[in-house]
């Protein structure tokens, strides 16, 4: 007489409690979960642009490290000269490097922005193409091609002035890179990248050289001490796990709004449907 697989009095407890949801609800929830997962993967998961490590983290690099391996000129001639010229004078494919200095070269190489696979490719963050020793050699060679800012001495340790770093960061950097260092579009097809995974020395180099469309900050405008403080503040933002829980991308109310709707459309509607389906189930004729 019962049309379910078990007789009425022997239904398992869990099926009494949970109630099987109808296929549409399950399908809808599955679709939402898949969309959310894709969204996470693309924005902050392994597939996110710029999620690749920016190369070996160098806590404090002075100008003139030890050079080992092939001399920088050999690497330069084979990997860089085609676009930047044999003497770094520039070509139609790439700018001159005579006023780049060690800071520019180190920044571009360690963040994987250079070398480009072909002229005209977009300049984006990625895995460094050279080993640490090769980069040091290249940097020394490019620095010798002209004059330009040296690699700044960025110190991040327990005595760093986080408060000064925060204040300087908000005043000079937050407008493009976001108060939480999560980056944002700046128009013209450019993006100010997220900074939480950037090595302190690269943070300092970027401030001094103004890569891409970034402005240049003279040492008299942002002192070397402030440079270290800013890098230390960014490091503290990364290390200090958000006290409120999962930080959804650090982009503020946009992400929070999507989460609120996602939760509403799944959890709350689920609960409401569950309550009514329990009633309908307890209405089925025996």
């Amino acid at each position: 007489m019962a049309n379910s697989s078990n007789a009425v009095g022997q239904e398992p407890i869990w099926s009494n409690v949970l109630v099987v949801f109808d296929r549409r609800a399950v399908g809808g929830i599955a679709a939402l979960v898949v969309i959310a997962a894709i969204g996470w993967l693309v924005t902050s998961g392994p597939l996110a642009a710029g999620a690749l490590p920016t190369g070996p983290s160098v806590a404090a690099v002075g100008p003139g490290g030890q050079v080992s391996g092939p001399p920088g000129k050999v690497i330069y001639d084979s990997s860089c000269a085609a676009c930047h010229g044999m003497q770094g004078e520039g070509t139609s494919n790439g700018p001159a490097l005579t006023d780049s200095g060690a800071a520019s070269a180190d920044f571009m190489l360690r963040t994987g922005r250079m070398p480009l696979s072909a002229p005209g490719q977009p300049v984006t963050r990625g895995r460094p193409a050279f080993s640490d020793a090769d980069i040091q050699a290249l940097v020394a060679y490019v620095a010798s091609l002209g004059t330009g800012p040296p690699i700044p001495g960025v110190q991040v340790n327990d005595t760093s002035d986080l408060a000064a770093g925060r204040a300087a960061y908000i005043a000079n950097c937050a407008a493009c890179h976001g108060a939480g260092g999560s980056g944002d579009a700046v128009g013209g097809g450019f993006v100010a990248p997220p900074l939480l995974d950037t090595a302190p020395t690269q943070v300092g180099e970027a401030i001094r050289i103004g890569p891409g469309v970034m402005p240049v900050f003279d040492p008299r405008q942002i002192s070397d001490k402030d440079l270290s403080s800013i890098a230390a503040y960014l490091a503290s933002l990364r290390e200090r796990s958000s006290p409120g829980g999962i930080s959804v991308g650090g982009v503020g109310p946009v992400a929070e709004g999507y989460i609120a709707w996602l939760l509403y459309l799944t959890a709350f509607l689920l609960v409401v449907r569950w309550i009514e389906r329990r009633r309908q189930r307890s209405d089925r004729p025996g």
Partner: protein
Amino acid sequence: MKSPSEVAADRQGRAGATELDRLVAWLDERTGMAGVARHALRKVFPDHWSFLLGEVALFCYVVLVATGVFLTFFFAADTRPVTYDGPYAPMRGAQVSAAFDSVMRLSFEVRAGLLMRQIHHWAALVFVAAIVVHVSRIFFTGAFRRPREINWLIGVGILLLALVAGLTGYSLPDDLLSGTGLRITYSAAFAIPFLGPWLAYLIFGGEFPTAELIGRFYVFHIMLIPALMIGGITVHLLILWIQKHTQFPGGRAAETNVVGRHFWPGQVFRSTGLFFLTAAILALLGGLVQVNPVWVYGPFIPYAVSSPAQPDWYLGWLEGLLRLGPNWEPTILGVTIPSPFLPAIIVPGIIFTGFALWPFIEARLSGDHSEHHILQWPWQAPARLAIGSAALTLFVVLTIAGGNDVLAVFLHVGVEELTGVLRILAFVAPIVVGLTAYRLAVERRRQDEGEG
């Protein structure tokens, strides 16, 4: 001489008066509530899952009030500058307002403070989402038709109050992000010809930023708006109670009856359970997902800004209007019409007026002025379905446009190109969706009538 409760017990054949008998008798001797209470407890409410959506919104509001009361004990609505010297190292030594300092203390030094703050904020975000879904249900099933026009108006009022409550609420910590939003609010009022600057000065107490602002918004947020809100919700529920709930067609349902279950005990217990489950989800959100981390934004500094810069999602449509709006700023006979005027004042004004007056507009357009207690399935009113779908689509496009810079990074496209596309979508998408909804509804209605 037996007491009334003992008389009652005798009549029911019980050995002695129970506690309940005594309690009921005690109350009734003083208020005469027995008859009214019995009538209330036996009131019939129909069942459908979509009828619970309004309750979800209501329970979100209860959570808001409960957590809000906690927060008022710790918040200082004062813009006087103080030096932060709490446990959050990157802020130490910074000059902040007392309001910001109190929120930092609440987040880092008061036990369960951050939890309460975050539950409060998530509850606000979900509250408005719940209202939107609830209003959509009311709209698409025609529940606003006579005699429920008043309740529709009150509901629209509650929605607007919720928006203002949210804006004033998240602006209280006086942080960089919300302060920027207040600047935009001020400028939007500014954009009204003739009245604008005067109105902006009146609300804000002078040229932005003013020292009175946070205190004034605090009064709005904890006193004026909750008073209006609670009054509005009470009348909303009272009218629903008196008019009895609508119901879907089918079964024994007719215009002259209500088919459902008694208020007590089933509906009361079920709603109580829904309340606890709503609160549970909000508690989980509040504990596990960070929201509005004001220590990252830092205190409001009028010459600093951070991006991305957005208001909370329920004002995203206004943000989208401002971002998509054209840069027209004509000067007519010496009067400048500022460029935010059209997108931020005129367009929302027209849409909200139409939204508020919809029951009357639809009655006039359809010629249907009769009483309705049976709901319609959404496809049974294709024109209404089309207009509502178009309006919702516009709302979604505008809200998405409010976050166009974040979306541009996510999609790896340029902000300018995306803005251009969204401008076109804002016109095209509602039309396409509306027409599609209309055709589908007509088809479905034809199917139903063919079978019936």
